């Protein structure tokens, strides 16, 4: 740690407070799409800055420009330590100490922790002999600096995701980083793991390393960063001090919308109960969960990742059997042995991981839409009737307003929002009584988000019972009739949006 501090002190003499990196007039066009339009960005040594914005706002493009992967359009000014760095390549970016920790980490699962951290020493055009001892020593030094203990010889695949995250941070530091980008580093971490990572971020900052933090978790952002740069639709909205910034204000800056739309205020207390769950437990995922959902009701379920919400949803969908407790669907106690039974009983589950679990990417839009109801499409010859399938597909594509070229095109050609609609269509085709939506807006941009919620409201109005799971609290606040807060496998709070404020709930969840 002392060495790092002295490195900062001995670094190029710059005026105090002068930016380490300053970018002006950054634009980038991909084909006809303007990903970035005249964006500004600056960061000082040792500063922790947040880069905020909705998905598709240009964050990744900006990171790629700063790390030399993309070149900005003409007219851009890029200064690092006061020197121009135009024509930056990935290699020169690395030489300047600009390191990116991508969300997928880009680590090597089969290799040891030590080699993952010190992999840089294996690079270079000329083959060299490997010095395992030096790699191990370098890795140990870095982990020591981070104040973390890991088994250096364990292969990476045996590590939990939080530990891998630390390995990725350590790898960035081996290369004498001056500026580290962390892309959604906490997206799959629990609260304790997140706290541990934030300690490390502060430590880097104390060593004079600038950290750019990209996160959707606004509470975290406001907590750890000193300033926040907001992008929206590829444009620069502004850089604001986090002092005095609220989550609500930040959300408004990111989305460009003031959240003045009303919360749900419907009286559904006389509607018949569709789902009733009593004292449901499944060790160690969740315990003593009780809830009811009425016809036409949207119940929001929020809580941090690892709170047990997804496991609860999977239990209701028959994929992770509960150990004790009862589930009653329209007055009949049910105990699903598999999700096939759940589907037959009228439960649909739209998974969190749309890209991997919800859709078969290379298959056509039509095939994806029909996949859960193939049996109902059989013609008299017991083969799938093309006519019935296209009728079904056309109905749903029309009803949900999916923008597609042709039903025969691969589903991977669609945008995030339209893919999400296809997932919905697939499950709606099963004609469910209870629809469970697990984080339906992940990876969906602002406009499409509103469209998806419009569909959800339409379904609720038609009488479907909906369990809406999301860690984006505004999503549940403005769309659900009631909100349940889950933490460590228990329901710890229940709110009615009309009777409380968004900040109250956010405060409770992120506390």
């Amino acid at each position, binding site marked *: 740690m002392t060495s790092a501090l002295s490195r900062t002190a001995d670094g190029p003499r710059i005026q105090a407070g002068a930016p380490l990196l300053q970018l002006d007039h950054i634009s980038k066009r991909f084909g006809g799409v303007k990903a970035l339009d005249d964006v500004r960005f600056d960061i000082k040594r040792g500063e922790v800055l947040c880069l905020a914005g909705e998905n598709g706002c240009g964050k990744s493009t900006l990171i790629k420009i700063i790390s030399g992967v993309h070149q900005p359009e003409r007219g851009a000014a890029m200064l690092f330590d006061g020197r121009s760095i135009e024509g930056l390549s990935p290699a020169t970016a690395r030489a300047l100490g600009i390191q990116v920790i991508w969300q997928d980490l880009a680590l*090597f*699962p089969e290799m040891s922790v030590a080699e993952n951290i010190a992999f840089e020493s294996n690079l270079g055009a000329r*083959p060299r002999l490997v010095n395992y001892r030096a790699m191990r020593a370098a890795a140990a030094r870095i982990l020591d600096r981070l104040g973390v203990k890991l088994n250096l010889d364990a292969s990476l695949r045996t590590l*939990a995701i939080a530990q891998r995250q630390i390995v990725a941070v350590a790898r960035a530091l081996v290369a004498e980083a001056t500026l580290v980008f962390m892309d959604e580093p906490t997206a799959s971490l*629990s609260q304790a793991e997140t706290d541990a990572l934030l300690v490390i971020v502060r430590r880097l900052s104390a060593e004079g390393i600038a950290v750019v933090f990209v996160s959707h978790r606004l509470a975290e952002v406001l907590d750890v960063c000193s300033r926040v740069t907001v992008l929206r639709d590829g444009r620069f909205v502004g850089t604001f001090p986090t002092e005095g910034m609220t989550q609500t204000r930040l959300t408004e800056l990111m989305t460009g919308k003031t959240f003045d739309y009303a919360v749900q205020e419907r009286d559904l207390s006389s509607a018949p109960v569709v789902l009733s769950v009593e004292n449901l437990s499944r060790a160690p995922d969740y315990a003593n969960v009780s809830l009811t959902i009425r016809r036409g009701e949207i119940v929001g379920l929020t809580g941090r990742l*690892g709170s047990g919400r997804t496991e609860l949803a999977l239990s209701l969908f028959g994929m992770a059997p509960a150990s004790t407790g009862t589930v009653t669907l329209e007055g009949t106690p049910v105990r699903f042995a598999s999700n096939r039974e759940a589907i037959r009983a009228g439960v649909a589950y739209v998974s969190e991981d749309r890209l991997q679990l919800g859709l078969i990417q290379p298959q056509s839009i039509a095939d994806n839409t029909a996949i859960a109801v193939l049996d109902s499409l059989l013609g008299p010859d017991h083969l799938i009737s093309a006519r019935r399938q296209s009728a079904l597909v056309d109905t749903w594509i029309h009803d949900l307003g999916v923008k597609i070229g042709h039903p025969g095109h691969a589903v991977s050609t669609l945008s995030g929002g339209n893919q999400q609609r296809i997932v919905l269509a697939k499950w709606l085709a099963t004609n469910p009584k209870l629809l469970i939506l697990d984080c339906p807006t992940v990876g969906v941009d602002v406009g499409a988000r509103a469209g998806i919620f419009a569909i959800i409201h339409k379904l609720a109005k038609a009488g479907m019972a909906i369990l809406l799971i999301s860690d984006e609290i505004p999503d549940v606040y403005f769309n659900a009739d009631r909100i349940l807060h889950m933490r460590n496998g228990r329901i710890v709070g229940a709110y009615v949006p009309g009777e409380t404020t968004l900040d109250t709930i956010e405060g409770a969840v992120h506390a």
Partner: protein
Amino acid sequence: MPRLRIGGTERWLILVIVAMGVALGLLTPTFLTLPNLFDLLNASAVNIIFGAGLLVVLIAGGIDISFTVAASVVQYLTAITVPLFGGGDWAVGLLLAGAFGTLLGCVNAFFIYQFRIVSIVVTIATYNLFFGLLMFWSGGVSIYDLPDWWTTRVVIFGTETASGHAELSLTVLVMALCVSATWLLLRRTSTGRQLYALGDNPEGARRVGINIGAMHYLAFGWLGLMAGIGGLMQAHYAQEVVPNALYGRELDVLAAVVLGGARLGGGRGTILGVFLGIILVAMTQNGLNLLGISPYAFKMIIGAIILVAITLSSEGVGRLIGSWRRPAERRAA
């Protein structure tokens, strides 16, 4: 990291090999004799050379089934070209065979890398292409009049024992050199570590700045080199060049290499594992022979052994057993 770390798969294989060796030693009078063990090594050497090459490709995340027919092509090309070098000698032969082999390997790398075609598809195509060309041009005719240096048996170590004459052939020496070179490449050079990285996480490898194209040419070129050398040694061992002598051997080698712990997805595998995997299969065959079991049963038994060994060493079994004990250790997705 200890220099000679022996992984779980390898330890397991050593255990099986020792157990089988003891059993065969007790059941047959000949198995545990120096002549038999040396013969086993002489006969396996070519497969081990092939296996060393294939390992490099598997580690880099590829697969190649064309290397045995490539080796046959190299045998022919070498037999045709050595007269141009005044009949040649071992040095010329190894140089030519290595060069032809590397070239054929690079043909695979070219299609796989330049056109981003899955390696199994490319090598199925080149497998047929190479073999078809070979049969077409040779007319299926074998070559028996090879130069003397090529066919004369070279003994690098010979000794008389109570159970007869035991000797190690040149093939074993060449195999040892190939194995050492591959070990050096994979374990001790930065390039080798980049090969592992590429197979382990291609996107991650690209991001840290590994030259993916160069790695493809290196991996498939290395297998080509080994195939060429292996082909030369096989012709030396058989004392003739027969166009379909190696046809079909690729799957035996592949199975043995995977048995030795190489992962088909890439990123994992050791040269020791290759050696043990091939020795285990050869030992089984040799043992069955000595026990007087019908040769028709060999394939069946070897297939079953590979299946059992791979099932036992896979993580799936551990997971299955683990999930019986602890029903819920799923991490939050």
